[in-house]
C-alpha cells in the first residue's frame, strides 16, 4: 500500500540514476520498503571492514563523506541523489571505505533484497551499475566514463586521491557560445565579454569549423593585422582538434600538452563531423585539480547556482586543510580564505539579485558582521549580516524595506545552502531589526552608544566589526563617521565596551588549570571561543575604536596597528597579535578535525605541546584585559 511518504520518496528517486530507469510501478513498490534515516553530523553510516548491511543508501539531503578510516583525507562526497554502499552488497564483501555524515543528513536505506531482482531484470539498471563500479567513483553521473569491467580494480586501487581524480570524468561547460564564419570580430568580442568566456566556437550547421580565443584577438586584431570588422573566418584557428566527450582528467591534460592548446572541443563521437558536446578549457582542469586559490576564485565568480558554489566550497575547505598541514603562516591563510569566503558571499548576493523580480529601488550595502566582518572566518561558521539602504521618503520606506527584507531572506537562505549556518540569534538581514535605512541605522547605533546596557554593548560588539561585502561603500563610510561622532560625544561608551570585554569568563583557574564548561551540551569541554578568543577580540575592538580607526577589522591587524600607534605598549600588542593568530589556528585545526565550528575542545584529546601553547596565550589574554581595565577605568563603573 503506497502512502504519502512513499510517494514522496518515489518522486525524489525518479530523477536520479539508476532509479530513473525504473518503471513508476516498480519504483512505487520499492519506495514502500525504504527506511528513512536521519544522521547527525559526523556519525558513521558504516565503517571500513564492517560486513555489509541489508540496505544500500541514497542521500536525500545533506552529504556523506567517504574515506579510508584513520585518514582525514576525504575521497568522495556523496551529495543529494548519490548512491553509495551498494557494491559490497552485490559483491558480498565487506565495506572498503568508511561513510560518515559530513553534515546533517537524511538517507534513504533501500533493502537490497527488493532492489536486486529489479536490477537483474532491468538491463539499463544493470548497465548503470557496471559502469559506475568500473569507473570506481561514487558519482552516478559517471556513465560517460567507460572504464574497466565490473569490479576488477578495487583491490589494486590504493585509493590515492590523485588516482581517483585522474580517473574521474571531467566536468566541461556545455553552454556553448558560438558564432558563424561571417560574424564580425567586434560582435564576437562583445559576446565573449558578455558571457565572460575566453573562447568562441565557430560553427557551420552545428558542426565545429574553428575556434577563436582571447589569444587570437590579441595576436591578430589588437596588433592591427586585421580590423575589428574582419570576419570570424579570417582570424579563427582551423582546423580544430576534437575529442570524444567522455574524457578523463588525465586524458585531457595529455591532449592539451600534446597539441599545446588551451581549449579542447568535445564532440559526440570525437570527430569534427559530429555535433559539439562542449568545450573544455585549461581552467576547467585546474578547477578539477582544485588546490589553487586563484582558480577557486574564478570558479566562484563564474558560478550561477548556489549548488555549484557549495561544491566549490568543499574545495576551499580542502585548500585550508592543505595550508594548515604545510604550516603556512596563518595571517596569509586567513587572508586567502576570507577573500574566498567574501567572494562566495558576493556571488550569492549577485545571484539573489538577478533572481529578484525588480532591480533594487535604491542603493544598498550588504554588511558582513562578526567573524566574517573581521576576516577571521576560516570555517563555515554562522552567518551574521545586515543591510543598509539609502534614505527614501517616508511614504516609500516600508515598500523599500520589504524589498530588501525579501532580498535578505533569499541571500541568507542561499548562504545556508552553501554551508553557512543560520545565525542562532537571528542577526541576519532577513530580520527586521538588521535591515534599516542609513538614517535609521544612525539612530540605532546612537541609541546603543548613549544607552550602553549589556544588550546594547553585545549588539554593538557584533555590529561594529562590519565590513562591506557588496554594494555601495559610501553608505557604510557615512555610518562609520556617524558612529565615531556619537562616540566622541559620549566617551563613557568605551568604559562600557571595555567592561563588556572583561565579562568573559576566565580561561584558567587558580592553579593555571583549564576551566571547562560545567553543564549543558558541552560539559567538560573547553570553550575556546568564549574563554580565549572573545576576550582578545573584544579588547582589540575597544582599543581600536578609541583611536577612531574603522578601516581595520582583523584582530591581528588591529593589534599590529595599535603597536604602531602606542610604541610603549608595543610588546604586549604584538604578543596579542600573535596570540589571536595562534588561537584562531587552533580553532580552525580543531574544527577541521571534527568538521564543526571548532569552538569546543576536548582537552583530553590535546597533546602536551598543544596544551602548553594554549596556556601561553592565556597569559597574554590576562595582560591585555588588565590594560583595558585600567585605561578605561572600568572599576569606576557601577555594575
Amino acid at each position, binding site marked *: 500500500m503506497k*502512502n*504519502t*511518504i*512513499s510517494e*514522496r*520518496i518515489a518522486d525524489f528517486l525518479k530523477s536520479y540514476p539508476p532509479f530513473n530507469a525504473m518503471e513508476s510501478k516498480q519504483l512505487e513498490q520499492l*519506495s*514502500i*520498503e*525504504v*527506511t*528513512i*534515516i*536521519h*544522521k*547527525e553530523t559526523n556519525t558513521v553510516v558504516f565503517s571500513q571492514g564492517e560486513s555489509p548491511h541489508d540496505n544500500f543508501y541514497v542521500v536525500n*539531503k545533506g552529504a556523506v563523506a567517504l574515506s579510508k578510516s584513520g585518514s582525514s583525507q576525504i575521497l568522495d562526497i556523496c551529495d543529494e541523489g548519490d548512491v553509495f554502499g551498494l557494491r559490497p552488497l552485490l559483491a558480498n564483501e565487506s565495506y572498503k571505505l568508511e561513510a560518515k555524515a559530513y553534515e*546533517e543528513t*537524511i538517507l534513504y*536505506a533501500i533493502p537490497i533484497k527488493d532492489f536486486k531482482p529489479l536490477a537483474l531484470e532491468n538491463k539499463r539498471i544493470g548497465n548503470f551499475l557496471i559502469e559506475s563500479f568500473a569507473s570506481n567513483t561514487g558519482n552516478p553521473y559517471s556513465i560517460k566514463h567507460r572504464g574497466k569491467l565490473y569490479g576488477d580494480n578495487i583491490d589494486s586501487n590504493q585509493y590515492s586521491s590523485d588516482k581517483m581524480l585522474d580517473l574521474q570524468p571531467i566536468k566541461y561547460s556545455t553552454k556553448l557560445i558560438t558564432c558563424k564564419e561571417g560574424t564580425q570580430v567586434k560582435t564576437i568580442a562583445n559576446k565573449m565579454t558578455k558571457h565572460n568566456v575566453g573562447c568562441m566556437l565557430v560553427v557551420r550547421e552545428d558542426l565545429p569549423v574553428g575556434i577563436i580565443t582571447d589569444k587570437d584577438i590579441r595576436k591578430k586584431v589588437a596588433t592591427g593585422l586585421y580590423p575589428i570588422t574582419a570576419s570570424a573566418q579570417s582570424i579563427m584557428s582551423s582546423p580544430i582538434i576534437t575529442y570524444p566527450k567522455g574524457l578523463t582528467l588525465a586524458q585531457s591534460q595529455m591532449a592539451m600538452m600534446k597539441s599545446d592548446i588551451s581549449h579542447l572541443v568535445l564532440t559526440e563521437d570525437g570527430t569534427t563531423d559530429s555535433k559539439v558536446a562542449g568545450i573544455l578549457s585549461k581552467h576547467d582542469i585546474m578547477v578539477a585539480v582544485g588546490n589553487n586559490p586563484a582558480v577557486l576564485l574564478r570558479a566562484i565568480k563564474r558560478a550561477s547556482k548556489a549548488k555549484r558554489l557549495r561544491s566549490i566550497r568543499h574545495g576551499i575547505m580542502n585548500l585550508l586543510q592543505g595550508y594548515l598541514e604545510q604550516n603556512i603562516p596563518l595571517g596569509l591563510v586567513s587572508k586567502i580564505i576570507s577573500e574566498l569566503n567574501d567572494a562566495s558571499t558576493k556571488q550569492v548576493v549577485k545571484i539573489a539579485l538577478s533572481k529578484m523580480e525588480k532591480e533594487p529601488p535604491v542603493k544598498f550595502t550588504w554588511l558582513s558582521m562578526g567573524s566574517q566582518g573581521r576576516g577571521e572566518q576560516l570555517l563555515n561558521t554562522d552567518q551574521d549580516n545586515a543591510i543598509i539602504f539609502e534614505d527614501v521618503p517616508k511614504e516609500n520606506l516600508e515598500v523599500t524595506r520589504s524589498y530588501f527584507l525579501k532580498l535578505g531572506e533569499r541571500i541568507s*537562505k542561499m548562504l*545556508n*545552502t552553501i554551508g553557512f549556518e*543560520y545565525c*542562532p*540569534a*537571528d542577526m541576519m538581514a532577513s530580520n527586521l*531589526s538588521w535591515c534599516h535605512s542609513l538614517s535609521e541605522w544612525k539612530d540605532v547605533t546612537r541609541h546603543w552608544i548613549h544607552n550602553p546596557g549589556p*544588550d546594547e554593548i*553585545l*549588539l554593538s560588539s557584533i555590529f561594529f566589526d562590519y565590513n562591506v561585502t557588496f554594494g555601495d561603500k559610501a553608505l557604510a563610510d557615512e555610518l562609520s563617521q556617524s558612529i565615531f561622532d556619537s562616540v566622541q560625544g559620549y566617551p563613557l561608551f568605551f568604559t562600557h565596551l571595555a567592561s563588556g570585554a572583561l565579562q568573559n569568563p576566565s580561561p584558567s583557574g587558580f592553579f593555571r588549570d583549564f576551566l571547562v564548561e560545567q553543564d549543558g*551540551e558541552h560539559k567538560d569541554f573547553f570553550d575556546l571561543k568564549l574563554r580565549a578568543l572573545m576576550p582578545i577580540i573584544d579588547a582589540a575592538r575597544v582599543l581600536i575604536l578609541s583611536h577612531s580607526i574603522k578601516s581595520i577589522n582583523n584582530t591581528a591587524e588591529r593589534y599590529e596597528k595599535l603597536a604602531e600607534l602606542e610604541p610603549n605598549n608595543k610588546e604586549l600588542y604584538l604578543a596579542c597579535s600573535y596570540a589571536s593568530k595562534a588561537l584562531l589556528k587552533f580553532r580552525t585545526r580543531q574544527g577541521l578535525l571534527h568538521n564543526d565550528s571548532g569552538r569546543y575542545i576536548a582537552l583530553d584529546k590535546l597533546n602536551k605541546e598543544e596544551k602548553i601553547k594554549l596556556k601561553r596565550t592565556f597569559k597574554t589574554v590576562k595582560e591585555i584585559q588588565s590594560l583595558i581595565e585600567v585605561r578605561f577605568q572600568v572599576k569606576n563603573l557601577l555594575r
Partner: protein
Amino acid sequence: MWPFSKKKPLELPDFWRAYEEHFKEKLPEDIHENIFVVLDTETTGFSFTKDRMLCIGALKLKDNNIVVKDTFEVYIQQEHYDSESAEIHGILKKSKKNTISELEALKQFLVYVKSYILVGHHVMFDVNMINAALKRNGLPKLKNKTLDTESLYIRTLLISSVVQKKERYSLDDLAKKFSISRKDRHTALGDAFITAIAFLRTIEKLKPQKIKDLLR
C-alpha cells in the same frame, strides 16, 4: 441507591484493554531505545465538540530511523462537514480515498501507538481531537506521554534578551528554519513527516541524555 457510590467501571472493549496493557511496562530510559510516534490529524475545524477528524497520519521514529512501511494513514468517514476547511486539506467528503468509520480508525490507531511517546506540532490539539473522538465512542482518554515540537524548538533558541522570540512558531516556520521541503504540507502523514524531521533536528540541538530530560 447511594448517589455517591463509585461508578461502576465502564465495560471497555478488548482493544482498549490491550492498549492499556502496554502501559504496564516502563519506557526505556535511553532516547535511542525509545520509539516515538509522530502524528498529525487533519480536521474540519478547531472545535473539539463540533468538528471532526478527517484523517490521522502517524509514523514511528526509532533511533533516527523511519520505516516507511510502518506508517499509519487513515481517512475517516464524515457526517459533520465543513466546506471551508476541506479546501485547505483537499479532502472532500466523498473523495476516492478509502474511508473507515471513526471507531475503526481509533481502534487501529490505538493498536499502532501502544504506549509510545506521542510527538506532534501543537500536539495537544491533535491529542484533544482524538480524545474527543474517543469520548464520543464511550472510551477514556489517551494515556500516552506527549512532546510538543514547538516548545522543544523554543528550548533550542538562545536565552538572551537580544533575541526577540516570537510567541508562536508554526510548522511552516520550523520547516523553513530546517530547510525541509513543504511539498506535502496539509496531508496528515506529510505534516507528520515534516514534524518528525524537525523533531530530529531539534533533538540534535538539545542533546538530551535520557528520555526524562525531554519530558520535563
